[in-house]
């Protein structure tokens, strides 16, 4: 019993880390927390742009990180249902449980698209709360930024002024950037595209593009040859301008359809870190717009 007591004493006597530990489920929220917190926060992302955030192993390293987190920021809308609840219950960290100030579900603060009217698993991996990939519309990022800055100020009262002023500065820069992107992407309005997964619904909606088909026969179900054959026929009658797949999707299906139809396939970084240029949130949207407008040159 004595060793247990010693361990407890050891655990409690460890110095509190100087920076606020932010555990983000996805890289976009880690990048946003970094923008808002600067050197006052230490961020870690549970996933990368090359991983499918629906399917993540509840790895020991993630439990270790969430155990020391002061704030958990995730997309929510059941995107992380297969791994986050386990990390939270295993963490032994009462500060970041759902309902406490240390827990943010970003999708709660934006208007969600593709909210299904009926739910059935025969429809594929649909999310009852709506499409969870909200980060592909920069206007959503702005809404989450306001919530996140305020939450950081609440958790770390000593640096509240810093978070608020950084938040305002970010809001201003972001507004200007959105205006720039909308101008650059003006000619994408009405352009038809095929997506691998419904991962860019919010982007398509923001830019006024038209999603005319998906490589996945149903959300979350890998492409099948029969479904791809159908798409080939569909594209012959009403061709899309591009076939879009993300940095974590298997490119084979998009390449297959591209070869059969002559429609260019475009890899979009799914989030921050998904391409060389997508180093931060600004770079991410710069790169996404550049890659989308590329085939129209």
């Amino acid at each position, binding site marked *: 019993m004595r060793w247990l007591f010693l361990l407890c004493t050891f655990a409690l006597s460890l110095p509190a880390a100087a920076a606020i530990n932010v555990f983000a489920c996805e890289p976009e929220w880690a990048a946003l927390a970094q923008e808002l917190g600067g050197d006052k926060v230490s961020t870690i992302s549970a996933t990368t742009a090359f991983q499918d955030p629906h399917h993540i192993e509840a790895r*020991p*390293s993630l439990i270790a990180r969430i155990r020391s987190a002061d704030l958990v920021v995730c997309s929510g809308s059941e995107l992380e249902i297969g791994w986050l609840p*386990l990390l939270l219950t295993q963490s*032994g960290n009462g500060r970041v449980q759902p309902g406490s100030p240390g827990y943010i579900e970003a999708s709660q603060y934006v208007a969600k698209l593709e909210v299904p009217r009926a739910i059935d698993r025969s429809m594929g991996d649909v999310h009852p709360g709506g499409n969870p990939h909200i980060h592909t519309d920069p206007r959503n990022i702005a809404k989450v930024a306001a919530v996140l800055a305020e939450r950081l100020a609440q958790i770390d009262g000593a640096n509240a002024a810093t978070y608020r002023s950084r938040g305002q500065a970010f809001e201003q820069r972001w507004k200007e950037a959105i205006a720039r992107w909308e101008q650059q992407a003006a000619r994408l309005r009405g352009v038809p595209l095929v997506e691998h997964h419904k991962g860019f619904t919010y982007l398509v909606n923001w830019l006024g593009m038209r999603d005319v088909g998906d490589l996945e026969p149903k959300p979350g179900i890998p492409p099948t040859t029969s479904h791809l054959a159908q798409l080939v026929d569909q594209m012959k009658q009403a061709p899309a301008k591009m076939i879009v797949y993300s940095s974590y999707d*298997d490119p084979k299906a998009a390449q297959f359809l591209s070869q059969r139809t002559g429609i260019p396939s475009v890899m979009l970084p799914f989030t921050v870190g998904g391409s060389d240029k997508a180093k931060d949130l600004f770079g991410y949207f710069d790169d996404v717009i550049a890659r989308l407008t590329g085939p129209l040159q």
Partner: protein
Amino acid sequence: MFRKKWCAAALAVTACSAHAQQSDEVKRLEERVQQLEQRVQESQAQAAARQQSESAFNPAVSATLNGVYANLKQNPDSYRINGFVPTMGDVAPPPRGFSLGESELGIAANVDHLFRGTLIAAIQPDGTGVDVEEAYIQTLALSHGFSVKAGRFFSAVGYQNQVHAHAWDFTDAPLVMKAFLGGQLKEDGVQVKWIAPTDLYLDIGAEFGRGAQFPGATAGKNGAGSVNAFTNLGGDIGAGMAWQAGLSYYQTSPDDRTYDDPLSATANSFTGSSKLWALSGVLKWAPNGNNTVNNFKVQGEYFRRKEDGDLTFDPAGAALADAYKSAQSGWYAQAVYQFMPKWRVGYRYDELSSGTTTIGLVDSGALAPASFPILAEYKPTRHTAMLDWSPSEFSRVRLQFARDYSRQGEPDNQVFLQYIVSLGAHGAHRF
């Protein structure tokens, strides 16, 4: 002058009429705003009414169904693991032909801001009733890495014992679990766990249980009938690889633990101490950590058990008793590879060593070794290969072949074709 006055009057009239028009407009707008406000309030009231209904707090409910077709060379009724004390547990292969596996029903929800509750019941296909697989509460709000679990739960002995059967990579349990844990060890008790505040995952924990299930057997005493201490280490190697290694030590003092020797049909009883060390390791790999297309998993465990006490031969009849001592071990290693989306192949090798067993009744000459035929020295082994197909994360169909040398001199060829599906809320899986 006159013209100026006329102009002013004309201006006033137009201004007045414009003003009147504007105020009409404002009134209409005001009315519309009021109507809208009323509507918003109504819909908010409706939404509030919905949230207040009791069903809004329904827990997450899930069901797991599975069925097997088995083709077995040997009759599963004669299943035994030579060299090892029979666990009297559910370790035999499923019956020949078609059979339904256990149907699992799970209910889980946060109890309140402090606790989470989980119930997993297994409905037996033969109508023998409902088994409580797991029913526990666990703390949510403790901090500094501490968590406490109480109730019935899969004991933290080794690795796979804590994984639900529907999430196993093979149809049946490794031989070490069959021989040393009687299948899967459930404990009624309390588990305390602490996670270290380090980037490298480290946990240390202890379980205090009833010790009623094999290898234990309690005679209703106060205090803990079993104690299990465990620790796990884990981390990442780059973005693509994650590992975990664990060590556990389980101790119990079975009192009158009886078994029927399947080869001689006599009953025997053991009273003494049973200590089990379990060493486990898991390594998972996927390109860039993205497991959707390809992934690879290796897993292995080593168990070593020492028992020391008294063995009573035929307690109901001859009732001869003398010292008994054994040191036995076993291990398995398995690898599973997803070579394309939905499809996985796997191979597992099992080996047990009956080690050294000292039976006082035999050493003293009171009985012949043939009186304890199941305990005769033997090294059971098994080779298993499987192929499975998972059209979605909620369904799986598996084909498995095994060459099983659990029974001395009677190797068994086993073919299983199995489906496992889960309905409703599907909880996250452990690493």
